[in-house]
């Protein structure tokens, strides 16, 4: 479904700040895979997601979605296939626009934007029902500006936006990291529910190893721009946090102690 083939990306090439973010990355996702991604800071997790989303061009390699080469496709054109939720709750929504308007924008992902009305009455009713499923009471304040919502509420809305028009691929970039633990758990459970109900192929970055084990059918660990560990199915289900830590220690020669992965 998604194929990342030998992808390289270096930031600030030729300067003192040169950083090889992706170093010959290879990854193939099957249809319906829910993959959790872990790895230390600077391992290239977010870079991988941004490369797939087309935020900037990659230096080398190929990215295919459903067999179609999207490597040279611009970000907004790739959006047709991809739903995204970001780490920063501010990033996924238009703060000065209403909840309903944000959803309407998302429901037109991948379609030509014409001079037809931006949000129809029928849509309004659909969104009302949809927001009810969040159980956050947002259905009663649909025309409120998204900027007035809390971080957790915004992430929930962004999640709906990313999946409103069923994407071929869902990219979740530490989307609960900026939330308090209770809210994070809620948003994560909601993500899991949406992914399963729609059978979405998903890449989810998390820095919480327990979550990485608990959710999804496959887990990958990244280090220095590559995948160094890839487990699925039964084997993944039986993983312990200590296994992951050990695994990481092996490859990173102990410089792992400084990493915030320890926190989880």
């Amino acid at each position, binding site marked *: 479904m998604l194929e990342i083939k030998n992808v390289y990306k270096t930031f600030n090439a030729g300067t003192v700040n040169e950083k090889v973010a992706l170093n010959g990355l290879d990854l193939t996702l099957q249809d319906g895979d829910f993959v959790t991604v872990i790895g230390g800071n600077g391992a290239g997790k977010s870079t991988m997601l941004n490369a797939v989303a087309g935020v900037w061009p990659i230096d080398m390699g190929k990215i295919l979605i459903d067999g179609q080469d999207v490597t040279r496709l611009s970000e907004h054109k790739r959006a047709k296939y991809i739903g995204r939720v970001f780490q920063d709750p501010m990033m996924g929504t238009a703060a000065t*626009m209403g909840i309903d308007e944000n959803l309407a*924008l998302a429901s*037109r992902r991948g*379609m030509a934007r014409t*001079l037809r009305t931006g949000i129809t009455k029928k849509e309004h009713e659909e969104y009302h029902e949809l927001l009810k499923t969040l159980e956050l009471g947002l259905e009663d304040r649909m025309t409120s500006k998204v900027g007035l919502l809390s*971080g957790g*509420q915004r992430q929930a809305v962004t999640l709906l936006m990313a999946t409103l028009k069923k994407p071929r691929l869902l990219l979740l970039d530490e989307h609960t990291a900026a939330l308090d633990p209770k809210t994070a758990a809620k948003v994560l459970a909601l993500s899991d529910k949406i992914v399963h109900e729609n059978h979405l192929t998903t890449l989810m970055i998390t820095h919480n190893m327990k979550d990485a084990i608990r959710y999804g059918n496959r887990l990958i660990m990244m280090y220095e721009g590559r995948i160094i560990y890839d487990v699925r199915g039964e084997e993944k289900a039986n993983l312990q946090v200590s296994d992951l830590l050990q695994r990481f220690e092996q490859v990173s020669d102990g410089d792992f102690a400084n990493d915030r992965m320890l926190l989880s």
Partner: protein
Amino acid sequence: MDIMALVNALPGAVAQGLIWAIMAIGVYITYRVLDIADLTVDGTLCTGGAVCVVCMLAGWNVWASILAATCAGLLAGFVTGIFHTFMGIQPILAGILTQLALWSVNLKIMGKANQAINVDKYDLLVSLRYIKDVPFYQNTIFVVAIVIAVLIALLYWFFGTELGCGIRATGCNANMARAQGINTNLNKVIGLMVSNGLVALSGALLAQYQGFADINMGRGSIVIGLAAVIIGEALLSRVFHNFALKLLSVAVGSIVYYLVYQVVIWCKVDTDLLKAFSAVVVAIFLAVPYWKRRFTKPTVAAKGGEKNA
């Protein structure tokens, strides 16, 4: 000081304020909707006036001339948009470049620095002379008010369409817009075009109103536009939340600006100082929201209550 002199000058001030309101609405679209400070407008205003006057002198109908002026504005906005999106130049610099180029273009359009048009010989839509002693439907204040009403209705419709919503999203959060499949570059170009089209339309009316187009007529107009936007918001943002009403408040801001301007002139203030005065007033108003954020405690809403998520 003769109070009647002031009273007599007020209708003229209102008419001018209304004509500049169209320009200010254009500024609102770039400054508030797209979040770009577009300096092209200083040149576009004159382009609009120049094209309109030259077309009319060539025997064109007044409406056709105004349309041609508006199209010239669309083109100027397009050029700035290309500078910014395709060539990657910062928006403020892109605008300055177009503005500079327009200086030459405007001179070439007019053939000289000032091109007059006689209200007695040509059938103008608006004029200084159409303020008093004309039937109401010919009165410049009435005519321009109708034009503004139509423009606000059109813009309200446009920014409610799929395309218009995309432009608003682009200005609000370009990352999110791209993630939702919106071509942000295209939308910025369209926004800049609409804005400059409006400014040129305003210039076309202004040239008719004062009876000439002048190479300097647009100088500093961005400041007047911003002043109108800011005054309108200061006066009405608490009561006007709807997009159409926000545009209306810009128009009100423009009229208030010219009324105050008239009062200042009436007080015999040295008119050479007026531009400096406008700049200082706008600077202070722009600083107020910044100071508010800096020197007051953050409100509960600003902290983003995570608890109720």
